[in-house]
């Protein structure tokens, strides 16, 4: 079985973003997506700082401190990019003008709930950033995360055990093992990595999965 690397997950997701989409990329694996958008496809990448039209990462020596992605890495602006205030940026996000928010997560539940800002430990600093706004406001929420925690416990659960970012917000999950869509009937597996059986995938998942009859190779 060949698990996907973080770069592979970003590459696969990038190829599935339709031309003309307006997309916000969160901290972690999602920000890697910017490097894999096909050159001939026009996609508007938004940064909550107040930028629309982000390009790939800046070449050494070309960095501008004021053009960064959600992870505060130096990126570029494409021709046609625009700059606006934080308020306008979140009006864009909360007003439903972002087609897809790609976010990292700790946990996703079978009912579409997502947890990605706090592990509930009281003396540790929680950090929400723009996640709650994106989860509540974007037209579609795609989660990119490893299928299991470091200790092997599942991240996809019947109900999240960590504090929620938003209820019922997730539309799609890309993990290192599979691509799963959220449909009214539940979690449907559209693709799995080569060499993995559905039974094995189910064993690594804390919620009931459905297999798409046309499930194909993931990677």
């Amino acid at each position: 079985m060949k698990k996907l690397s973080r770069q592979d997950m970003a590459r696969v997701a990038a190829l599935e973003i339709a031309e003309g989409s307006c997309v916000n990329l969160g901290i972690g694996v999602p920000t890697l997506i910017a490097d894999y958008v096909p050159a001939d496809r026009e996609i508007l990448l938004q940064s909550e700082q107040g930028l629309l039209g982000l390009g790939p990462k800046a070449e050494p020596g070309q960095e501008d401190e004021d053009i960064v992605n959600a992870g505060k890495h130096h990126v570029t602006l494409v021709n046609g990019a625009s700059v606006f205030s934080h308020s306008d940026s979140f009006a864009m996000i909360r007003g439903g003008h972002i087609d897809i928010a790609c976010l990292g997560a700790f946990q996703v539940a079978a009912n579409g709930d997502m947890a990605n800002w706090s592990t509930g430990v009281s003396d540790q600093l929680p950090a929400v950033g723009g996640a709650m706004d994106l989860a509540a406001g974007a037209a579609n929420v795609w989660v990119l995360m490893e299928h299991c925690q470091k200790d092997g416990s599942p991240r996809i659960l019947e109900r999240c055990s960590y504090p929620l970012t938003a209820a019922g917000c997730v539309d799609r999950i890309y993990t290192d093992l599979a691509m799963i869509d959220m449909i009214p009937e539940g979690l449907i597996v559209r693709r799995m990595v080569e060499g993995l059986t559905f039974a094995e995938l189910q064993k690594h998942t804390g919620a009931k999965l459905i297999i798409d009859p046309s499930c194909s190779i993931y990677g």
Partner: protein
Amino acid sequence: MIDKRVKSLADAVQGIKDGSTILVGGFGTSGRPNQLLAAILEIGTREITIVANNATIGTDIIGDLMRARRIRKVVCSFPRGLYGKTIFDELYANGEVELELVPQGTLAERIRAGAAGIGGFFTRTAAGTELAKGKETRLINGKEYVFEHPITGDVALIKARQGDRWGNLVYHRGARVNNPVMAGAAKLTIAQVGEIVDLGVLDPEHIVTPGVYVDRLVEVKI
């Protein structure tokens, strides 16, 4: 003659009192008025409540203010450092600093509401989460919304690329962020600008912050 220019950073921050609520512009360190914050450290202001998108990223002026125990409370969306634990983690774990965690868009809109004289607003952000606990909620078109209060400050510290003696400001790229919004949300707004230009140089069509929102302007070439 309207002239909001002051000669030095010390003049810019003159009169800021202990216990002030200070709005600080920026996204991480982009667009943050670091030199004005350094001047606040210099004059010894204590018991500060900071309202900002981020706290300290690790080694920076907010971290210096925290190490000097000048900050009582932080209202922000992302208090974690970029490269592991910071002084904030330590002070927070010891109960030496208070944190009000606010979702980023809610923070931006609360400040906008404060600047615009709006008494609050309902948003779907944080509905059904821990950050909505104890807050008024309302069903609007069948969806749950959370009521959020406006934020205003005693002082706003902002950074711009250029300004003129009337206080008109323009910014640079993402460094615009919350600076133009905070400019209207405090009793005293102090801008550090990279360059002070003559009145009339800035195209009225391009001015982002009209001078009415700005009280003091200091040139910091960086």
